[in-house]
């Protein structure tokens, strides 16, 4: 991330959103809204004094997953690039109550600007990579897991904060009561492979759950009960890690964790069915739910801006599931990472590399091969009525001085809508001419069923 921030050929636009795209492969124009962060980026040195002194604390639902707090002027996390804070205007005392300005008074360079407005940029780009990632599915949607009823029922992401050296406990695995847990249950496939939530496998939860089991054994020595349906350790060295976790003494229960019950004394009872033992239950101090991932909530909007298709799981559709995994139906727009479907870190890196190489290939060729399927005009027949000009979705057709239609082959996508509209039969979509289609109709109807 640091390298990307420093690279002379990379312009990072953080806290910014693409609002509209026009043009075509090699010649896109992106309209980008750069949000007002209320901090002048060219002046701020990233010293962090404002963040330290800001009096407003807010529960951080994003990076800390609700396990920690941040200030109203903050960087999303300590290694964030660029190292420039943003004012959360919904919670800032100055923006909500009209007074405070502590950050402005303390800033040694005068970088705080409460008046800053969003700016709109028009950027010329040749290709676009969509790497918008995923969102965590909300386990409250399946009430049998009792998520939200006890602070000791947490998601895998929340456990990551718990076990992180920069997390709320400084990396110690503790229950909400501040004690070391003696017994912990991990439940796989919460919201994944479940017809009541998402049918697909979220792919990386098995591995992080094994990692969590290993960390709990390593840091606390607690007994770990791991409820799984199938252990999907498909990657390089993954199965070996599974065996190592078994050697750590983790108890694996072969069946979905069906229900979590909060007992009157605050302990948690996890019920499930083991394929070998039948009905089982474990009373534990902490439950970790390996929750599903799903597309970002604004995926609909992103899909319509960039002309992306969706697969039935609602992730963005690749051009071909096997042979064109990073291209989309729109030339010059590529996909990378979980925006296209669940994948773990090595697979994401490989996918992103592939997307980058597709762009390099496109740019190195310097020219774009377009399909020969374009419309041509028979000027002898054209009466210049202009129906085709109205029909063309790409404004590829214009009228010449002689009042004849003229097709710009670079803009034409060969849809043939003009051909169907032309009353004089003067405009033809190559490779899909009337004669060819009629020959197909007649040929097909010779088939005897």
């Amino acid at each position: 991330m640091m390298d990307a921030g420093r690279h002379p050929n990379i312009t990072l636009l953080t806290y910014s959103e693409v609002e509209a795209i026009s043009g075509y492969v090699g010649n896109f124009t992106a309209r980008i809204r750069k949000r007002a962060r209320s901090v002048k980026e060219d002046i701020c040195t990233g010293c962090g004094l404002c963040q330290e002194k800001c009096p407003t604390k807010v529960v951080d639902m994003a990076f800390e997953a609700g396990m920690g707090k941040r200030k109203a002027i903050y960087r999303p996390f300590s290694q964030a690039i660029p190292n420039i804070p943003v004012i959360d205007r919904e919670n800032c005392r100055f923006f909500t109550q009209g007074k405070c300005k502590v950050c402005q008074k303390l800033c040694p360079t005068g970088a705080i600007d409460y008046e800053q407005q969003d700016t709109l940029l028009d950027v010329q780009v040749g290709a676009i990579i969509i790497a918008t990632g995923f969102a965590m599915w909300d386990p409250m949607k399946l009430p049998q897991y009792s998520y939200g009823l006890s602070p000791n029922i947490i998601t895998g992401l929340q456990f990551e904060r718990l076990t992180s050296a920069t997390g709320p406990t400084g990396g110690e695995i503790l229950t909400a009561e501040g004690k070391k847990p003696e017994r912990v249950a991990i439940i796989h496939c919460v919201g994944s492979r479940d017809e009541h939530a998402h049918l697909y496998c979220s792919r990386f939860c098995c591995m992080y759950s094994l990692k969590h089991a290993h960390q709990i054994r390593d840091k606390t020595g607690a007994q770990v009960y791991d409820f799984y349906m199938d252990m999907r350790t498909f990657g390089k060295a993954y199965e070996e890690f599974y065996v190592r976790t078994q050697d750590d003494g983790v108890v694996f229960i072969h069946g979905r964790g069906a229900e979590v019950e909060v007992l009157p004394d605050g302990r948690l009872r996890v019920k499930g069915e083991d394929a070998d033992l039948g009905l089982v239950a474990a009373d534990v101090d902490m439950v970790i739910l390996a929750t599903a991932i799903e597309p970002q909530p604004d995926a609909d909007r992103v899909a319509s801006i960039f002309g992306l298709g969706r697969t039935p799981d609602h992730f963005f559709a690749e051009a071909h599931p096997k042979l064109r995994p990073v291209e989309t139906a729109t030339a010059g727009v590529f996909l990378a990472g979980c925006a296209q479907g669940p994948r773990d870190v090595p697979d994401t890196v490989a996918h992103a590399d592939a997307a980058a190489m597709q762009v390099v290939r496109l740019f190195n060729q310097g020219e774009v091969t377009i399909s020969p399927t374009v419309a041509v005009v028979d000027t002898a027949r054209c009466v210049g009525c202009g129906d085709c000009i109205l029909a063309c979705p790409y404004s590829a057709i214009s009228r010449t001085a002689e009042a004849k239609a003229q097709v710009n082959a670079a803009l034409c996508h060969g849809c043939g809508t003009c051909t169907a509209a032309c009353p004089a039969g003067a405009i033809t979509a190559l490779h899909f001419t009337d004669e060819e289609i009629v020959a197909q109709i007649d040929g097909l109807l010779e088939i005897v069923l």
Partner: protein
Amino acid sequence: MTEPFEPRIVAFLCNWCSYAGADNAGISRLPSPANILPIRVMCSGRVSPEMILRAFRSGADGVLVLGCHIGDCHYIDGNHRTIKRIPLLRNLLGYIGINPERLRLDWVSSAEAPKFAQVTQEFVETVRALGPAAREIGG
């Protein structure tokens, strides 16, 4: 016993959504009837009324036009033309003695393999119940 009537149906499939949807139905091993005789066009907006009439003249018992959902057209709004043309043509079919039920327009995206199978099966049954088109046209 006479053989059951097997209608012949010309299906115009747009390249980006419905043709891919048909492909996907095949990959997913979903059965779609052999009565469907597919013709790939780049866009459902390419299907002119003349082609549909030509198909009936050449002996089709039904014509199915499948395109991208409105709003999802690969060519921005080619299917807006389709949604105007096909219902108009359906209204006119009656005048030339063809039951309008023999022409169906529907939307199948590339991801909707089950819908492709369902629409084709339904339409074949509809046309099978109507009997041969030649009986109506007297061809």
